[in-house]
């Protein structure tokens, strides 16, 4: 017993080091596996609060570009509105359920990272505004990412510039599907992989979200094809996509709330259980 106590006293620093190392390594590994760690994220009130304060000041520096962006979007939406054949039909009513399928929450990016391989954004709305994990996030130009963790007033978003992110997308013209990933190289480009060779792809074609996931509605803009490769291993196309969005400069974003999401996931989970 005496010897054990002596050993611990003598090596207290080494033991403490090993203990702390194990803790931090396990936190690291947890964060690498699909979202688990709760504490270590900028969605908590302390880090979120600081980011919000700083952003309140930073906002003033790009008010002009934000305003222009909003005006452009307003103009686009107005033109959609005026070109409708029957304006009374505007609030789209689902024939079966009588309510619209998606709801939109507006929020503001208070922290944006794009310089590492796993980039996250922090926004200043959280579970109190109805934001939950796995909701899609877009802005006026195109998609931004997917909600990861939420606290009461803040949430973190896995940016599309994150090597972990994988989003279903398609070529607008030909409806061929692929997965949208990021190779970690440039903030202006993402990659669409696993596009079948049958698909006729040409530089400049538009890529939009596919309708296969419950996270994003169909046909939200992502970018245009910039380069076409053929993957040597899988023999599928890999496309370099030039993003519509400037991911280094994000202001207001919209969170898409799919009202059927819960129902669909429940159904899918049940299917998995039955198998």
């Amino acid at each position, binding site marked *: 017993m005496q010897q054990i106590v002596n050993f611990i006293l003598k090596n207290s620093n080494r033991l403490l080091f090993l203990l*702390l190392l194990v803790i*931090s390594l396990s936190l690291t590994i947890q964060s690498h596996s699909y979202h688990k760690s709760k504490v270590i994220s*900028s969605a908590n009130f302390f880090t979120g609060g600081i980011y919000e304060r700083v952003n309140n000041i930073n906002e003033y520096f790009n008010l002009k570009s934000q305003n222009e962006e909003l005006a452009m979007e307003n103009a686009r939406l107005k033109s959609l509105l005026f070109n409708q054949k029957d304006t009374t039909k505007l609030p789209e009513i689902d024939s079966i359920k009588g309510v619209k399928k998606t709801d939109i929450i507006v929020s503001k990016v208070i922290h944006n990272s794009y310089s590492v391989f796993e980039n996250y954004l922090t926004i200043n709305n959280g579970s109190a505004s109805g934001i939950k994990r796995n909701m899609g996030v877009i802005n006026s130009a195109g998609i931004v990412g997917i909600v990861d963790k939420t606290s009461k007033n803040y949430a973190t978003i896995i940016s599309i510039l994150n090597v972990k992110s994988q989003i279903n997308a398609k070529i607008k013209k030909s409806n061929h599907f692929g997965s949208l990933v990021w190779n970690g190289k440039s903030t202006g480009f993402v990659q669409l992989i696993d596009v079948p060779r049958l698909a006729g792809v040409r530089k400049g074609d538009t890529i939009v979200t596919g309708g296969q996931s419950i996270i994003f509605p169909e046909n939200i803009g992502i970018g245009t094809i910039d380069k076409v490769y053929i993957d040597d291993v899988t023999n599928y196309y890999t496309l370099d996509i030039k993003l519509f969005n400037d991911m280094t400069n994000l202001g207001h974003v919209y969170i898409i709330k799919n009202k059927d999401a819960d129902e669909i996931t429940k159904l899918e989970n049940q299917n998995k259980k039955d198998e």
Partner: protein
Amino acid sequence: MNSALLGNIARFILLLFAQVLIFNRIDLFGFINPFPYILFVILFPVNGNKTGLLAASFFLGLLMDMFCNSGGVHAAACITLAYFRPAIFKFSFGLSYEYQTVKLNDVITPERFSFLLIAVVLHHSILFLLEVFKLSFLWEILWRTFLSTIFTLITCIIIIYIIKPSKR
């Protein structure tokens, strides 16, 4: 004794906030950020409490991880640096470093520079290795570690010169 403790706490807070609010936003060439917050670990008094340093650097790293959404990579890198600090001291300043009063925040001599260099390289290699954990990015990691090391080193030296106590 107390003033040293207060100085450390002040340094902890100042460096953390400077890192989060200023240095994390530099993004030189799109991806290079310096990490001068490790000056806290480097400038900790040579004869200070080692257990305290370990604990403090763990919390410093953990707070950085919260701000960067990076799991535990900063914490791991910081405690490794804190733990191996005496060994680096021994390497850079010779065996009897504990008896001399080594003052780091002073004019940069070759010894001090080698200490800074080894400390920064150790911290950054662990940081970038853990950050990605994928061997397919090996060259990217080496390249980023290299560039960030240089950038951090320059920032650290500038900061040391700025906060250097004036000669009496």
